[in-house]
């Protein structure tokens, strides 16, 4: 006797019972329909994707054929109009780009600190940079002279050391010819010679020499321009990176410049003639106490204060 023949009268009942059992188990375990839903969704997308794609291509093709056959003049006119519109938009874009550049330059100037706004600044673009010196696109025709200060909103860049009618050379704090009068911002402490020297090597740091061993300086102190310098006092120059004590009466400090000249696009030159303070008006006791009374300061001389104070 065939097994299927025996089960036939009960087949539907068995199927019914199995389905009921599965359903009850599913209900008891509260099986979520999310996985099935995901499968259905994927299946639906899979089935309908070629249909939708084909429909889109066929529709586009028919549109193209209809337009090409029945509306060639319209297409030609539209093409011409679109080309003209494109040209107009390109010109407008160029105009906007130029205006944007000008506005950005104005914005940079307006972002300068308040006390700088009284200064006469000349904006200059950097033409080239080599060995810590910048060549800028402003020269004597623009009122640029040697030993004028060069700054950016972040701080001091350097000094003008050479000029020509249409360009100038700036010695940055990475160039060995740059000397800037500086002091520690925290306690207005100057070195004995009052200036900082760029190392001029690949270390790209400056040095403040001849600091009395009893003077308090710390790593991280901010160095700013001093009133004796050709810059307005208080402009940031850099921060003290390390302090060296040589066992003598002096110690020195390495200063990391705040401005990296290799990342600049443009600079500002201080045109104003900022005269360094006269030695007789210096009220800083730190400096005056260190002066040798035997030194006679010549009158009406062009010698800078840095040279006067140099050991």
């Amino acid at each position, binding site marked *: 006797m065939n097994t299927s023949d025996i089960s036939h009268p009960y087949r539907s009942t068995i199927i019914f019972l199995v*389905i009921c059992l599965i*359903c*009850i188990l599913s*209900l008891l375990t509260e099986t*979520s*329909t999310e996985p099935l839903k995901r499968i259905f969704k994927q299946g639906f997308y899979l089935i309908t994707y070629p249909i939708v794609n084909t429909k889109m291509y066929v529709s586009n093709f028919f549109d193209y054929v209809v337009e090409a056959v029945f509306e060639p003049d319209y297409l030609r006119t539209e093409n011409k109009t679109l080309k003209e519109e494109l040209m107009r938009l390109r010109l407008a874009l160029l105009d906007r780009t130029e205006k944007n550049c000008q506005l950005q330059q104005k914005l940079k100037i307006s972002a300068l600190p308040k006390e700088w706004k009284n200064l006469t600044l000349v904006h200059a673009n950097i033409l080239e940079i080599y060995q810590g010196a910048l060549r800028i696109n402003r020269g004597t025709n623009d009122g640029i002279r040697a030993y004028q200060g060069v700054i950016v909103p972040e701080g001091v860049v350097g000094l003008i050391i050479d000029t020509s009618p249409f360009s100038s050379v700036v010695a940055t704090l990475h160039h060995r010819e740059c000397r800037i009068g500086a002091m520690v911002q925290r306690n207005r402490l100057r070195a004995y010679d009052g200036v900082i020297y760029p190392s001029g090597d690949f270390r790209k740091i400056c040095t403040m020499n001849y600091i009395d061993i009893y003077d308090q300086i710390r790593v991280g102190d901010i160095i700013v321009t001093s009133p004796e310098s050709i810059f307005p006092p208080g402009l940031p120059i850099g921060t003290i990176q390390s302090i060296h004590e040589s066992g003598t009466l002096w110690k020195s400090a390495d200063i990391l410049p705040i401005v990296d000249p290799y990342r600049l696009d443009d600079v500002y030159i201080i045109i104003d003639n900022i005269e360094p303070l006269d030695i007789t008006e210096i009220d800083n006791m730190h400096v005056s106490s260190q002066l040798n009374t035997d030194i006679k300061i010549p009158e009406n001389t062009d010698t800078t204060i840095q040279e006067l104070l140099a050991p």
Partner: protein
Amino acid sequence: MYIDYIIWFIIVLTMSVIQTGWPEVLQIQGVVPDLGLIMVIFFALFYGEERAMFTGILAGIYQDIASNTSLGHHILCLVITGFIFGKLSSRLLSEHPAIKSGLVFMGALLHGLLFNVITYLQDPYTNFFYVLFVNTVPSAFYSALMTPIIFWLLHHVFRLSEIKTFKVINK
């Protein structure tokens, strides 16, 4: 024979999609006929309980997915209804449209009762009698009214398929 199953599959899926996807097409005063149940009873009366149960599984899975209930909620109700009406079909004279409508009405009530009992067991805070009288009875009545139209359509479709199948076999 395979064409018959393919048509059955497409019809059941289409009806389920219409019921769950576009209920506003059939909706009157917020009441929707249960097309899945009408099909289950149709197949129970004319094809036996097995086809009715499989119809119930297919329509039930779709309704479970579409209505975010636990898997098996709709399936169980439709399968039980299909099985009972399939067993009864051999003992009933169901040629007259009014009897068919009456059977669908009874089936819809049974289906609704089972459905609400399961819902009540899962969440005892539901108002069992309120749902029964506000949703189930009007839906059963509307399903009964739709029965002659749906049955006529299904008869028409499956008669066509039978002719096609017959032709394929004879070839």
